[in-house]
């Protein structure tokens, strides 16, 4: 991160442009300009919103760059809180976002942003074109570092190979020296370029007097490199003639590969969220006082304005249609994938898309009062208040490093009295043998390998940390629609009037139902199969009464029988008595009254029951919280064997339930599919979204199940428990390895070349152990 460091003074200087050199200059000027632009109140609303009940207080969302771990999040929080005027700060290590509440009387945005810069990070307002570009640069750089390390690693191995296999005398000293020089040259880009992030992060740790895993890693890299360089150019010197370029480059490559994969996972999530925020158009045609439509920024819209929305545009606000007839796509907001028709007087919601025709609408709610904004906000706050998981490796980094330094120092001091020449070599051996390769690879290697195994089963892992949380989960909460059931309903019972057969009734109902997009109508059509009967009947004057039913005049082709009015819908619409209250029914009536009743049932996923049973066997309590009617939720719960079910839940209810269980000490995994689940998914310890889930839910879920197979949830759960076992094995292996090798090195029994070999093989062992997770074995839960 040299770029970051060198750019810092720019913000302290009164005249930034004067202190900057060539290439970065234009870029830096832009940055400074961008920062001061943010002090204009007009711009605040792009990334901030005023806080209700607190006059002059704004809540801003910023992206933090240069953040690696949970410790960074805490540093940034402390830095921001110390700025006068900043009221509250929440930094999310997972999403690299921060929420800052500040008072506009006391501070301007550039004020607290500069504080973040001074701490060695970079804060960007979270409006996205900017962030997106920045992410691209970051991910290209990460890939570039990894590729350089990988390529150099391969070639250095080639040069190291002869020294491993040569018998004494096979290799002339000159040749050996040449191979060392070649290795050294190819290690240079790895050390000076690829290792950059480790060194700059370690340097930042030193400056801020804290310790994370990067510090021992960087120290190990540096010492290994220096000792190997000394061995190359001064084989007779005090560091001996051993070189470790192969172990060094391999270790760097492993670490960078892990980091790059993590970065990619993170980028995907951030991208999905940003796309969503971007759905609202920038400008819209508004009816002016002169009766003309003019284009104004969406920010200027007010309640009561009349606006015109063209086909293909998104609705910028919630409101009511005044003129026109169109179909809209609300898939993103409600999970409803079919286009819905909207007529004059119907409500449209912001964020949905106008598909077919130009319409005029009256604006009823704008900005943060729209349903869209509320959901996005709920979700953002749920995501930033997520409990940050401290990485195990980071927590033991400090005692580890101190222990190693003490051991090396003591060993050096001990040998100094008897054999000063050997003392330095022993200290170096200690440092090399403890280079925390295995330790820092233990966790990410296992998690990446498990993520790969799940990906092959159709489960995408969005956040590696999720394995840790999922393994500890003891409660699973289902959202009924689309998770336990399929979207469609099935007809399970038909009652008909005397003189009709069930087939006839179904066919007749299907003919009428074809004219409606209601889910029950679609189920009727599906149940009737292809209605070849259509030819015998012709429908006229088809009218759909929203939420009640469909009505039409039926003519027989050729006029064989007199025409009659056919109604299909609710009991009150057809004017018949409800037969079996509680069941989901549709009735059909003609001029003579009741004709038929159709009873429906949710179409359970075939593996729903087995999944619930398997979860319960794994010692997990299963809940069902559904937004659907209570009796429907109960019915489904009974069928799959869930005892605790609750219907009519709003997103807030679900979130409350979640918080409550968490307070009681339960670890909850949530399985959802719709937009309403977004906030709940984000707040859960671990979350699953199903494949057809709306992007919002996907963006917040830790696991994305794409095949629609519920059993995948059980797979993921069991695999995450195994992953944690492997992580523990890896960590204890690293501990044992150090416990054995450090004393050996301290007493001078471990030559440096053996230390290098130990370092490389312990990394390999950890990676191989992790790879066991990717074996595609059958899980045992099906028994």
């Amino acid at each position, binding site marked *: 991160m040299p770029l970051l460091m060198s750019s810092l003074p720019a913000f302290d200087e009164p005249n930034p442009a004067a202190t900057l050199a060539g290439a970065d200059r234009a870029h830096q000027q832009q940055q400074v300009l961008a920062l001061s632009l943010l002090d204009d109140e007009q711009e605040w609303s792009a990334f901030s919103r005023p806080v209700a009940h607190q006059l002059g207080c704004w809540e801003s969302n910023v992206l933090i760059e240069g953040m690696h771990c949970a410790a960074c999040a805490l540093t940034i929080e402390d830095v921001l809180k110390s700025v006068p005027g900043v009221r509250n700060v929440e930094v999310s290590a997972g999403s690299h976002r921060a929420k800052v509440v500040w008072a506009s009387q006391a501070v301007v945005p550039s004020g607290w942003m500069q504080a973040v810069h001074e701490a060695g990070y970079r804060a960007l307002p979270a409006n996205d074109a900017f962030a997106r570009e920045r992410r*691209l640069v970051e*991910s*290209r750089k990460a*890939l*570039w570092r990894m*590729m*350089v390390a990988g*390529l*150099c690693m391969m*070639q250095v191995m*080639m*040069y190291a190979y002869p020294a491993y296999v040569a018998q004494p005398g096979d290799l002339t000293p000159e*040749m050996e020296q*040449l*191979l060392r020089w*070649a290795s050294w*040259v*190819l290690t240079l*880009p790895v050390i000076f370029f690829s290792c950059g992030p480790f060194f700059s992060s370690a340097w930042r740790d030193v400056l801020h007097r804290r310790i994370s895993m990067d510090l021992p890693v960087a120290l190990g890299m540096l010492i290994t490199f220096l000792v190997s360089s000394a061995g190359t150019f001064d084989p007779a010197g005090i560091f001996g003639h051993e070189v470790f370029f192969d172990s060094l480059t391999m270790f760097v490559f492993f670490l960078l590969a892990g980091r790059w994969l993590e970065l990619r996972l993170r980028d995907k999530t951030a991208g999905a969220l940003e796309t969503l925020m971007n759905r609202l158009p920038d400008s819209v045609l508004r009816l002016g006082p002169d009766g003309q439509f003019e284009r104004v920024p969406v920010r200027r819209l007010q309640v009561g304005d009349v606006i015109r929305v063209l086909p293909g545009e998104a609705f910028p606000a919630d409101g009511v249609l005044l003129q026109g007839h169109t179909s809209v796509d609300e898939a993103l907001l409600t999970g409803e994938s079919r286009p819905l028709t909207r007529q004059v007087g119907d409500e449209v919601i912001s964020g949905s898309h106008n598909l077919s025709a130009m319409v005029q609408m009256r604006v009823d709610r704008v900005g943060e009062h729209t349903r869209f904004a509320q959901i996005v906000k709920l979700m953002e706050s749920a995501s930033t208040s997520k409990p940050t998981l401290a990485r195990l490796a980071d927590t033991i980094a400090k005692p580890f490093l101190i222990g190693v330094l003490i051991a090396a120092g003591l060993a050096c001091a001990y040998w100094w009295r008897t054999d000063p020449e050997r003392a330095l070599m022993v200290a170096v051996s200690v440092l090399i043998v403890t280079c925390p390769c295995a330790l820092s690879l233990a966790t990410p290697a296992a998690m990446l390998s498990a993520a790969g195994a799940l990906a092959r089963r159709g489960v995408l892992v969005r956040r590696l940390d999720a394995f840790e949380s999922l393994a500890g989960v003891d409660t699973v909460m289902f959202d009924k629609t689309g998770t336990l059931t399929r979207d469609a309903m099935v007809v399970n019972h038909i009652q008909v009037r005397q003189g009709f057969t069930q087939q006839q009734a179904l066919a007749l109902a299907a003919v009428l139902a074809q004219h409606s997009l209601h889910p029950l109508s679609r189920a009727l059509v599906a149940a009737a199969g292809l209605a070849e009967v259509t030819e015998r009947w012709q429908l006229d004057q088809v009218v759909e009464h929203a939420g009640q039913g469909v009505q039409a005049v039926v003519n027989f082709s050729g006029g064989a029988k007199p025409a009659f009015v056919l109604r299909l819908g609710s009991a009150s619409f057809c004017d018949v008595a409800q037969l079996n209250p509680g069941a989901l029914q549709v009735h059909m009536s003609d001029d003579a009254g009741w004709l038929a009743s159709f009873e429906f049932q949710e179409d359970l996923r075939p593996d729903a029951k087995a999944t619930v049973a398997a979860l319960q066997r794994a010692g997990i309590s299963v809940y069902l919280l559904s937004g659907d009617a209570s009796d429907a939720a109960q019915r489904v719960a009974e069928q799959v064997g869930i005892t605790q079910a609750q219907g009519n839940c709003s997103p807030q209810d679900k979130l409350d339930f979640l918080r409550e269980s968490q307070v009681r000490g339960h670890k909850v995994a949530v399985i959802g599919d719709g937009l309403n689940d977004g906030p709940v998914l984000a707040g859960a310890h671990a979350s699953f979204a199903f494949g057809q889930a709306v992007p919002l839910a996907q963006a917040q879920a830790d696991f994305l199940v794409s095949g629609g197979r519920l059993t995948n949830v059980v797979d993921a759960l069991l695999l995450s428990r195994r992953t944690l076992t492997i992580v523990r094995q890896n960590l204890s292996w690293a501990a044992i390895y150090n416990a054995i090798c450090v004393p050996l090195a301290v007493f001078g029994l471990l030559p440096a070349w053996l230390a290098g070999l130990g370092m490389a093989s312990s990394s390999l062992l950890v990676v191989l152990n992790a790879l066991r997770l990717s074996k595609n074995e059958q899980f045992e839960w099906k028994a």
Partner: protein
Amino acid sequence: MDILYFLVPLSVVLVFFIIGGIWWAIYSGQFDDIEKEGERILKDG
């Protein structure tokens, strides 16, 4: 085997050339969206 004294340095130079090639590939956007290219064949237009 004297040729090795030429070939080994040459291999180092070659590696730097390849690294240059990778640099070009990354910064001309070849790896920016790996999944998209695979899916593109399935999409119209």
